[in-house]
């Protein structure tokens, strides 16, 4: 239970932490803004979790996937708008949607097993360890990205942000094929023997840039197209670059 809690907390908290760090490096936000966005996201997660059992029965047991696809697309658009315009509304929408998407899973896990007296301590310690690892990783990533930003400008940061946002579209795509909205295409490559998504590095890369060991053709096309579109817009709209150029 301890290891499961640790892995669960890493899986669900790391994507939120990474996005927060990347947005923070693009344009530093006040502590109040970050805290309020995360807090609203946590409340939304709780509400989403409360209604999830009911929503899951919509559209022939496919309601949750539709709502999650909506959240993934919202995150991509909000992050793109934030990269281009640095509007606080975009920051709020991106963070709240991400927290809602990922934290709701963890809340479901926590609330389900918390009442089990044997599991309580393991849940607490696992969550604490997972949060600590996320925090350490976030601090390292923050300083690394800041260094890269001051040395090489905004483009490496936008590139990582583009990959990270495109990864949300991959999640949406997987959800869409899960409910038969789209048909899976042939697998482009199989890297399970080289780097499994289940490994530590695989999980970090998955949270960072959406690594998939067995992507299908549609996933590769959507990932590349959306990343290129994201970067092109960052190049084409100069305000986003000149504002933060150092």
């Amino acid at each position, binding site marked *: 239970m301890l290891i499961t809690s640790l892995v669960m907390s890493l*899986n669900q908290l790391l994507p939120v932490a990474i996005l927060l760090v990347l947005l923070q490096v693009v344009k530093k936000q006040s502590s109040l803004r970050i805290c309020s966005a995360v807090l609203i996201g946590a409340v939304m997660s709780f509400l989403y979790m409360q209604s*999830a*059992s009911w929503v899951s029965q919509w559209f022939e047991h496919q309601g949750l996937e539709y709502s999650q696809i909506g959240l993934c697309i919202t995150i991509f658009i909000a992050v793109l708008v934030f990269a281009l315009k640095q509007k606080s509304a975009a920051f709020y929408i991106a963070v709240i949607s991400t927290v809602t998407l990922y934290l709701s899973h963890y809340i*479901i896990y926590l609330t389900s097993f918390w009442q089990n007296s044997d599991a309580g301590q393991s849940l607490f310690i696992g969550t604490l360890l997972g949060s600590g690892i996320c925090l350490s990783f976030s601090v390292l990533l923050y300083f690394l990205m800041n260094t890269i930003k001051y040395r090489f400008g905004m483009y490496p940061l936008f590139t990582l942000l583009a990959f990270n946002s495109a990864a949300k579209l991959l999640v949406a795509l997987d959800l869409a094929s*899960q409910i*038969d909205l789209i048909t899976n295409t042939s697998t482009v490559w199989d890297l399970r023997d080289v780097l499994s*998504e289940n490994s530590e590095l*695989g999980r970090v890369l998955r949270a960072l840039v959406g690594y998939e060991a067995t992507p299908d053709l549609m996933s590769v096309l959507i990932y590349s197209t959306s990343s290129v579109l994201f970067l092109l817009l960052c190049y084409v709209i100069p305000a986003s670059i000149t504002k933060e150029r150092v």
Partner: protein
Amino acid sequence: MFYPSQIIIPANKKVKLLIENQDSTPEEFDSFDLNREKVLYPNRKSIIYIGPLSKGHYEFFGEFSPNTARGVVIVSDEEAQHANN
């Protein structure tokens, strides 16, 4: 645990899995091999489509109980014997 924990399906065909969580706690169907992830609520039914897949073994597990809830989808050329349609 998942029952059946071994599902045999035909290659290159889409399959609809109907999963019922008969436990009193939720579980999450998770598979890196299949790129699938879905919360299974207690006493609720859920549907997951998989495939078309090429021949091979595709593992899945319950993310909330990864040590005990494990299974595998076996994709073979022969007609499915235990596919959950």
